[in-house]
């Protein structure tokens, strides 16, 4: 269980998070929705320790995420970054097997390569892709490689940051289905941030709406269309008029 309690974060004079409270049960898939610049990525980075909250607490299975063995903590996570964040200087298979080539999870090179090729196959990529460099791949392929990297070490928790941004609808559907399949197959806890409603409906067990630095509404994805929350209604219908200002 991941729990955020009264998490605050400011950047200079801008208060991005103003008391975020959120619980993500183990094995469930939580999707955080919200407009651009509302702090979705900051929330996710706070959990990972990439950004330090100014106030509040974040716990994983009751343990404060800022204490204890950092490597052991991060070894439980996989992360798909918005832009893929693949390492340009490494071939695809070394990107996927990055964690398996160094550190506590280090495996022999041949074994790491075999695992990388298997993970690439799992996300629908052929073994020939393994020796290419990220710059030689299309956006959709890069996203899949990044997904393969996120699952390579079979983490307990996987974060997805805008997994379908910049992809065409068909490729978005492919990525959404892959994410859902992998999360179910691995029994992983998933936390996804997106403003793509097709992703929400494909991936989520539960949905939380972040707006103005706080969680405005949260609940099962089945309740999303009948939430009764004006923020959620405006967001999912994509209307310009409503409590969320169109010009931010």
């Amino acid at each position, binding site marked *: 269980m991941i729990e955020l309690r009264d998490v605050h974060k400011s950047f200079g004079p801008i208060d991005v998070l103003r008391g975020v409270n959120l619980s993500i049960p183990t094995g469930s898939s939580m999707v955080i929705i919200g407009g651009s610049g509302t702090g979705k990525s900051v929330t996710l*980075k706070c959990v*990972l*320790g*990439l950004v330090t909250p100014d106030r509040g607490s974040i716990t994983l299975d009751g343990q404060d995420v800022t204490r204890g063995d950092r*490597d052991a903590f*991060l*070894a439980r*996570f*996989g*992360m798909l*970054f*918005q*832009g893929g*964040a*693949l*390492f*340009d200087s490494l071939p695809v298979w070394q990107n996927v097997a*990055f*964690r398996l080539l*160094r*550190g*506590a*999870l280090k495996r022999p090179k041949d074994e790491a390569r075999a695992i990388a090729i298997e993970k690439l196959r799992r996300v629908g990529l052929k073994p020939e892709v393994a020796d290419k460099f990220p710059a030689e791949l299309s956006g959709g392929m890069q996203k899949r490689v990044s997904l393969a*990297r996120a699952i390579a070490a079979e983490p307990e928790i996987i974060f997805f940051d805008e997994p379908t941004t910049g992809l065409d609808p068909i490729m978005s559907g492919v990525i959404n289905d892959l994410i859902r399949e992998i999360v179910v197959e691995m029994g992983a806890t998933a936390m996804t941030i997106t403003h793509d409603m097709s992703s929400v409906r494909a991936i989520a067990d539960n949905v939380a709406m972040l707006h103005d630095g706080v969680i405005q509404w949260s609940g099962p994805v089945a309740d999303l269309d009948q939430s009764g929350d004006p923020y959620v209604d405006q967001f999912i219908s994509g209307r310009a008029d409503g409590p969320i200002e169109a010009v931010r």
Partner: protein
Amino acid sequence: MSMIAQFLASIGATVLGFLATIGRVTIFAGNTVSHLIRPPFYGREFGAALIQIGWLSLPVVGMTALFTGGALALQIYAGGARFNAETVVPSIVAIGLTRELGPVLGGLMVAARVASSIAAEIGTMKVTEQIDALTTLSTNPMKYLTLPRVLAATLAVPVLVGVGDVLGIMGGFLVGVGRLDFGAATYLHNTLDFLTLWDVTSGLIKGAVFGFLVALMGCYFGMNSGRGAQGVGRATKSAVVAASVLILASNYLLTELFFSA
């Protein structure tokens, strides 16, 4: 607030900002060095940095030294002729190159080539979230990116300076023998007679310090790069400027330390 108070406040803010930057760079340097004694050590990244910083800088440093040695010989000959002291050309070329021009010009060339490329590479990695990705993959970016580059530059630049010394003296020799009518044996004899081990060693030590500073500036400004292409561009420019100024300033301090009476 009066105009004078505003003026003084702006000076104060600039000074405070400058001191804060010095503090941040010092902490960054300390953090980098502390990783030397804390495993793991990424040998492959160190090897790649050694090739990138050392081997691939060899042509530019070598050419700089060769032409500087030749030009120096011509200048010293012309200046020495005013005092009937043309014979000092070989020894002054050798001492000037090994103590000062070799390490300083070599350091500046490496700063232009390496500090910019390190800052641009790491800055781009930061903008595209590759640094965050490293962290989430349980890899410390300071250990994986900064330490290998700083260590490689600290070890490679003295070697570049040494090669530059040899090529610079050779440039002086070629001009001395070819253009200034020195005998080859006499030129070499004069060079070796007046050159001491400390002349060479002090230049190599300077090279190590300059290498450290160049890579440190590249990494520091890359890691602290702003967003977008403009942020990376600014980081690259700042890295080169800071590395160049630090090379010149530390050169004075080291010269004062090594050679003041």
